[in-house]
C-alpha cells in the first residue's frame, strides 16, 4: 500500500509518457486520463508531505492536473513529462504555502499499518528507544510539525529527497536550480530538522 520504493523518473528510453502526451496533444483526452492515474499517487505524496493537510493536497492536486491539461500543448519535450509535471506541482504548492502562511491545521492521513513490517522502521525501533516508546500517532505528529517549520523551498527538497527518494540531479531539474543549491538547501534543512527532532535521536 505504501509507496515504499523510491520514486525515480522512468529510465526506459522509450518512455510511454511521450506517446500519451502526443495523443493528448492530438486531442485524445483518454490519454491524459492515463497520465493522471499514473502520476496521482506520486504527486499526491509530494503535495501532501509539503502541506501536511489532506484537503489542501487534494485541491492542489486537482489544480495541478488541470493546469497540466491546459498547458499540454506548450509541452515541447525538452524535459521528461515526469520532470515537467513535478515542477508544476512543486511550484504551485510553494505558491500555495506562501499564501497560506502559518495559520493552518494539520489534517493527516492515516499511517499504513504495513509500517510495522518496514525494515527501516524495525531498525529504528530496535536501536532508538525514543522511537520505540513513542506511539505511531505521536511520531507522525512530530515529524509533520518539524516539516512545517521549514520554509516551502526547503520542505520541497526534503520531501523529494528523503521521502520520495529522488536523486539530486532530478530535483535540480524540477526546481530549475543547480545541484549545488539542492545540496546546500538539503544540508540546511537537515540541520534544522535535526534540532526539531532531537528527542527522537538515538540515545
Amino acid at each position, binding site marked *: *500500500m*505504501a*509507496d*515504499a520504493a523510491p520514486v525515480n523518473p522512468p529510465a526506459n528510453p522509450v518512455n510511454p509518457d511521450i506517446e500519451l502526451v502526443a495523443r493528448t496533444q492530438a486531442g485524445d483526452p483518454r490519454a491524459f*486520463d492515463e497520465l*493522471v*492515474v499514473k502520476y*496521482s*499517487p506520486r504527486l*499526491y*505524496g509530494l503535495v*501532501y*508531505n509539503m502541506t501536511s493537510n*489532506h484537503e489542501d493536497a*487534494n485541491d492542489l*492536486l*486537482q489544480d495541478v*492536473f*488541470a493546469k497540466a*491539461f*491546459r*498547458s*499540454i*500543448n*506548450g*509541452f*515541447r519535450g525538452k524535459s521528461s513529462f515526469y520532470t515537467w509535471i513535478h*515542477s*508544476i506541482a512543486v*511550484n504551485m504548492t510553494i505558491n500555495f504555502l506562501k499564501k497560506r502562511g502559518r495559520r493552518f491545521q494539520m489534517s*493527516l*492521513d*492515516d*499511517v*499504513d499499518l*504495513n*509500517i510495522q513490517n*518496514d525494515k*527501516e*522502521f524495525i*531498525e*529504528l525501533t530496535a536501536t*532508538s528507544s525514543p*522511537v520505540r516508546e513513542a506511539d505511531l500517532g505521536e*511520531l*507522525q505528529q512530530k*515529524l*509533520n510539525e518539524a*516539516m512545517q517549520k521549514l520554509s516551502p523551498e526547503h520542505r520541497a527538497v*526534503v520531501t523529494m529527497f*528523503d*521521502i520520495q*527518494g529522488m536523486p539530486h540531479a532530478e530535483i535540480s531539474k524540477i526546481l530549475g536550480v543547480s545541484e549545488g543549491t539542492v545540496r546546500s538547501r538539503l544540508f540546511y534543512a*537537515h540541520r534544522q*530538522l*535535526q534540532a526539531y*527532532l532531537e528527542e*527522537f*535521536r*538515538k540515545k
Partner: protein
Amino acid sequence: MPEDFDELSKLLRLKRFEQPPPAYFEDFLDDFKDRQRAQLLREPAWRIAWDRVTAFFGGHSAARIGYGLASAAVLVIAGVTSFNILQTRPTPEMAALPAPHPAAQQASYLSLNTQAPMPGLPTLDSRMAQMAAGFPPRYVMDARPVSYEQPPSSF
C-alpha cells in the same frame, strides 16, 4: 555529520506510510473530470483564452508574458507617435515662409487669396473692385501714396 543525517533520513522516510483512504486514488480521476467540467462552466471566456495563450508560448509564468505584451504595446505606441511627429515636421523651405494668418488658414488652397490681409492695406479683392470701377489702384507705403500713377491734374 552524515551518519546523523542518515538516521534523520530514515525517520523522514517513515512519512511514506502516511496514506489517503484506499478508495481515494480510484475515485480521483472521476473527481478530477467532474471538477474540470464544473470549472469550464464557471470560468470566463477571457480566462480560457488567456490560458491558451500562455500555454501556446510554453511558459508557466503568465506575468512574464504579460510584461512582454505590455512592453510590446508601449513600443508600438511609441513608434506610431514618432511616425506621426516625423510626418508633420516642417521642411526647410516651409520653415522659411512666414507663419500664415489664422484667417488665411481657413481659405481654400485653390483660392488666389492666400495672403493674409494686412491691417491698413486694401485686400486683393478690394483692389480688383477698384480697377473694375475705373479707378486706378493706389499703392500706399508708410501712409504716403507711392503709385506710379500721376494724381489727377488740378490745372
